């Protein structure tokens, strides 16, 4: 069976579910948007920090490399120039015939040696592994050079003049050339090192570029997906809002429709009551009045027989009127609802409907007492009345089962027929709307299950509130039947 709750409940339920879903959607959207944009911002920030860091690193490296290169080059140049100078001073020392000047050259030479040694030492302290061999060779060569020079510096003027030139030509100049070569090699290496350092920098830069490219790619992709996601969510929310708006306006339309129909129904009821009062009661009483006037004026009464015939007529008219008035008052408010309570009133109604239609209406209940609040009694009574009215008019049912159960916190009512059923979604008369409104008024729920061909079940739950229980106690003046 297709279970479809009634309109008002469905409306409430749907809108509740809808609201919950809507809230959840908004919440999840917020979380997603915050996470997405937060992630995006974090990535961009990290990339920025990384670039600044890398740039600083490269600059620092660059400075360091240049500094290093320049200082080593400087040292090497010093060594070289000292070497030249030493050659020059040795020559001057050897070739100068004056002993005093020669002595000053020697002193200068010693000074040059000290300078060179300190330059060499200083270079040695910042030596690179690749230069080690050349540096050692240079050092050895230098110490040899100075070693050879050592005895020469002790010579007197005659000896200097005799061996000076030969010594210069055979020992000093070739060695000086060798050493200059070594120094050049070291300079080459130094240059190579500079290049290598530059290359390392370049590699650092390249890897940074790659990283930046990847980061950019990710950022762009994430941005695009965020944009797509946000757009989709916005569209979805828009659609939801639209649906909700429609639901609200539909509900309002229905409400307006309902109240218009209720006003109309009230008017119709009044009209029929007025007509019944006038046509039935009024006419009958007028007739009685006419008969009574005839009797009192002595007209139309010639015999005992005629008199009794007139009295019989009056009796018949009055009996009819009494019946009409009783039926009308029962229709308006059945006295047994107040006198006997809900269940006897329902039973009476069931019997009345059974008598007037071809439906078999039964009432079953587990209600121990009839101590129900007045509005509950009236609500259930009217709901049953409306449902039975619907059944007799539309359903072609042959049997209707009414069940009233009392549960700890609520009163449940079910009305089940075996009629042809209907599509709850499609058609809903004023009667069902009235039922739903009555039930909703007591915060109850009303579910209508129906399908073409399989009968209809109206199930109603009326929750008890503290207030209603108190009212019920106050109203329980009649002993239950």
């Amino acid at each position, binding site marked *: 069976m297709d279970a479809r709750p009634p309109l008002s409940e469905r409306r409430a339920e749907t809108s509740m579910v809808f609201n919950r879903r809507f809230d959840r959607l908004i919440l999840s959207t917020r979380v997603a948007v915050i996470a997405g944009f937060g992630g995006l911002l974090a990535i961009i920030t990290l990339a920025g920090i990384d670039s600044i860091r890398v740039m600083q690193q490269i600059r620092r490296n660059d400075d360091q490399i240049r500094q290093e290169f320049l200082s080593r080059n400087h040292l090497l140049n010093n060594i070289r120039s000292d070497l030249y100078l030493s050659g020059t001073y040795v020559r001057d020392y050897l070739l100068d015939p004056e002993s005093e000047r020669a002595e000053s050259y020697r002193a200068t030479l010693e000074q040059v040696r000290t300078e060179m040694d300190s330059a060499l030492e200083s270079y040695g302290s910042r030596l690179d592994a690749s230069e080690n061999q050349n540096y050692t060779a240079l050092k050895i060569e230098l110490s040899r050079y100075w070693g050879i020079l050592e005895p020469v510096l002790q010579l007197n003027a005659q000896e200097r003049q005799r061996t000076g030139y030969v010594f210069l030509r055979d020992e000093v100049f070739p060695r000086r050339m060798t050493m200059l070569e070594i120094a050049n090699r070291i300079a080459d290496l130094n240059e190579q090192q500079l290049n290598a350092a530059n290359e390392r920098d370049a590699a650092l830069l390249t890897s940074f570029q790659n990283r930046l490219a990847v980061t950019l790619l990710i950022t762009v992709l994430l941005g695009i997906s965020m944009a797509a996601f946000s757009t989709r969510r916005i569209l979805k929310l828009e659609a939801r809002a639209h649906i909700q708006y429609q639901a609200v306006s539909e509900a309002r339309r229905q409400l307006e429709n309902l109240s218009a129909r209720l006003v109309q129904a009230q008017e119709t009821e009044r009209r029929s009551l007025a007509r019944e009062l006038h046509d039935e009661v009024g006419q009958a009483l007028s007739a009685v009045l006419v008969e009574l006037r005839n009797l009192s004026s002595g007209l139309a009464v010639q015999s005992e027989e005629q008199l009794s015939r007139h009295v019989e007529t009056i009796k018949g008219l009055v*009996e009819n009127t*009494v019946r009409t008035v*009783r039926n009308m008052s029962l229709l308006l408010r059945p*006295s*047994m609802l107040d*006198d*006997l309570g809900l269940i*006897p*009133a329902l*039973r*009476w109604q069931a*019997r009345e409907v*059974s*008598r007037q239609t071809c439906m*078999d209406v039964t009432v079953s209940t587990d209600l121990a007492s009839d101590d129900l609040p007045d509005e509950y009694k009236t609500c259930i009574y009217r709901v049953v009345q409306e449902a039975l009215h619907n059944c007799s008019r539309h359903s072609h049912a*042959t*049997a209707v089962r009414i069940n009233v159960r009392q549960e700890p916190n609520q009163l449940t009512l079910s009305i089940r027929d075996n009629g042809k059923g209907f599509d709850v979604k499609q058609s809903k008369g004023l009667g069902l709307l009235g039922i739903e409104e009555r039930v909703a008024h007591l915060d109850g729920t009303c579910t209508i299950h129906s399908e073409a061909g399989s009968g209809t079940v109206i199930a109603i739950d009326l929750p008890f509130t503290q207030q209603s229980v108190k009212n019920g106690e106050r109203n329980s003046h009649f*002993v239950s*039947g």
Partner: protein
Amino acid sequence: MRAGLKLLLEKQPGFKVVSEASDGHQAIESALSSKPDVVVLDIAMPKLTGIEAAQRISSQLPQTAIIILSMHSDEGYVLRALKAGARGYLLKDSAESDLIEAIRVVSEGKAFFSPEISKVLAEDYVREVNIRGVEDSYDLLTLREKEVLQLLVEGRSNKDIASMLNLSLYTVETHRRNLQAKLNLHSFPELILYAVRKGIIS
């Protein structure tokens, strides 16, 4: 209405109207002071309803027969009246024609209902049996049980029935229990109502 009925009863030989009352409380007071054989109560009285008055009177004066006058022909009211201790139930429409007979019948200890009530109840019963196609529970009773039921609803006590049917009191009580179980009726008023519906009494 009261004046009309009083006039009717006063004319009847052997009848005497001992007191009158205009509301439920007065009715109880005057009934308790005059202890009449029969009390006729309108169901709709000011201050205290006829049902409530009947309840008080029947509990204080079990020998007094009570007739309820009502405009309701529904069995809910009839059952309520019977439970309150009434033995007769008359519709106001036809009270004048039936009151004398009703008073005679209830003073003999039997139950009395307006013919219209009997008719309506019996019709309802027949219709219910027909529509639902259920087995008539009356058919489940044995001949003896039917006899006991008949005598019971005519107002006989268990002891009377025992001597009339030549049975022991215990046997009558057993029959009564069994027939109530078979008919699923749990009180004497329900039994009376059933009898009316079934047409065993009218």
